[in-house]
């Protein structure tokens, strides 16, 4: 079924929209969730929440890309779930999701306080990512959006792990400078 038709079902409040969404994007979303959570039962739960949030979001939202929308919802729910699990178990994270390399990059200080400021920050990051060369963009988004491990990225792109690490370090540095020039304290 086409995305438009699924969206129309959602807008018409037809419950079959969920089955169609699951049929079309269940594997994609499952993959995103599984990568972050690494647990089948939690992935299933995350998928339920994803469908529920998509159901509640459309309408009024009308995403231009349903796949990206559903994947983003899954990713954010999975991260939230993971953090809850980590908080309960104290340090239950794995290497791929520890993102230790970000320690030097983020200040750990002042948060993005207002919704407006946050939206502006997202907009700036979008602008930065669009300008990045393809490979660097892929690496950066897969790492910090898709939560892929360094080894997995190296295998995927035929690079050495150190090469991936160095490339990501440079992109992070560039992004930090880019945001700083625009008045964002990362």
């Amino acid at each position, binding site marked *: 079924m*086409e995305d*438009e038709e699924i969206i129309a079902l959602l*807008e018409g409040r037809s419950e079959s929209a*969920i*089955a169609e969404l*699951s*049929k*079309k*994007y269940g*594997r*994609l979303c499952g*993959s995103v969730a599984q*990568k972050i959570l690494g647990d*089948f039962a939690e992935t*299933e*739960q*995350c998928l*339920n*929440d994803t469908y*529920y949030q998509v*159901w*509640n979001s459309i309408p009024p*939202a*009308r*995403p*231009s890309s349903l*796949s*990206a929308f559903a*994947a*983003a919802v899954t990713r954010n*729910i999975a*991260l939230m*779930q993971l953090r809850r699990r980590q908080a309960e178990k104290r340090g239950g994270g794995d290497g791929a999701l520890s*993102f230790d390399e*970000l*320690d030097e*990059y*983020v*200040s*750990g*200080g002042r*948060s*993005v306080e*207002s*919704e*407006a400021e946050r*939206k*502006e920050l*997202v*907009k*700036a*990051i*979008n602008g930065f990512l669009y300008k990045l060369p393809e490979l660097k*963009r892929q690496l950066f*988004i897969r790492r*910090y*959006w*898709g939560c892929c491990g360094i080894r997995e990225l190296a295998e995927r792109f035929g690079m050495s792990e150190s090469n991936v690490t160095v490339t990501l370090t440079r992109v992070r540095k560039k992004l930090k400078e880019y945001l700083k020039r*625009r008045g964002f*304290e990362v």
Partner: protein
Amino acid sequence: MTKNEFLDVMGEIDGKLIESTLDISRMETVEIPYERPPVFRYIFGAAACVVAVFVTALAVRHFNGIATQPLDSTSENYSFSESESVSTTGSDSSDDSDISDSSSESTEAPEPDFIRGWDPEDYLSNGLHENIALGESLTLSTAELDGIKVALILHDITKLPGEEYSENGLDYTNYYGAKDIVLYIIDDKGRKCLQEYVTPLRNDGMQFIHQNCFIGESTRLFKTESDDGEHYVLMQIADYSEENDAPIATFYDVNMVSDRLDENGISGYGLIEYYIRGTGRVGGWRFGYQASGDFCHSGGTTFTDPVYNYNISICPNTDKAYVISADIPLQDKNADFSELNITGWDPDTLPFNTYPEVGESAVVSRAELDGLQAELIMINVIKRPGERHYIYSQDDYLDMWVADDICLYIKDDNGRRILSHLNTPLTTGFAKFMPEECLFVGSTKIFSVERDGVSDYVIMQYCTIDEDSGTLNAAFVSGDTELYDLTAPKDENGITIGGGLLPLTPRGTITSSSDGSLVILEDGSLYDREKNNTIIFCE
């Protein structure tokens, strides 16, 4: 910024970036194996199972053919794969060859991606209307800026203002009704797009828009300037609050145009809606303001969120532009209130109902002792026990209440009010679960205990059940409101929401109780005589 905040911000990046990275069309080859648990505990609904098997079977068939790294034949792996290809693999390409051959010989226009059945171009020149007839289709509002043209079209009018009509408790007397209420946009490159479902009020066959939406310029275009270049923003007054005499606007980004075209060459969608806080808020949902941006267009206006009285203003900004800003007058009422602490509902206005319908919010259980009140609140019931929900369809959930939120609300006779989530074991990010057996008249109790001269008020709420023994387990929190940090963040109703509840293990002798059913046994455990239940503290 913390690492988590950075990752959260990354989660909001443009969908196009995600789509191009996941690169669905070229198929991902990453496989993430998982170990299925020994017992297949989570049973989707029958339909979902059939779908899963079907999709899996097709995927295996498809990927074995074309993917660079085929899926395991057991196919119990998730992968960055999805169904664009899956859905097309069902058809045999050889079967399609005749069709594609014949179409390739045709010199006619390309097949439309979908059929709309009517052309908005037919209704653009109607101008202003004095005598509108039922069944007509016409443009009621237009805007134009830098070559971009927008028209609000009512297609097939089914009701006129003044005609009495009500539905689901809403009075539509002052509304237009039409089969479609759409925004039709032609951009400066001649691309056309049509945005459906412009108004929030609709049923299966009709959409409604208030007649006062057409006072003044109800459709407007603005241009924003930022580092990313120019963006055009479309504003449509799509609803109206009679109670507050306030128009309610919807904002769209007009820069996105889909390449899926109808029979008239018009894309099916193309606008990205900005969310305005206050619309469609349910339970814990938060919608952010589109609260900044420079607008190079004249015409300042203020719009009001009729529920929460937020003002959303478009007003002059120094030398060149206009700024959308959000003003929250409730900040004056509650000094501690911040934009981030919106509960979205007031527990004091919820009805008491021990068996709310799906979609309802209610106080489902309550207790009172010495002026102290405790209430269990369910927000937006998703399913009731015994109902199989199409999303939360697993057998594990069948006998449970599922709601957007389940909270415990405490207030004393000194006006102290505290609200906190009740963390039931099956809490997920977007739903809370509670076993059927845990909700009954008396499932919330308050009692005071005394030991070594120290007395405590204890609030008890049944929240889980031991499936093997049938024992109900309870959560205990302190009812001593003076212990709570009332300087913690407050919501828009002035209720403390930031401090959480203080867990308390009851010890000593019960001195008074809200329903008299509780006793503490010799071994120190708590016993509910009415339910014949020894209560275990639920961490």
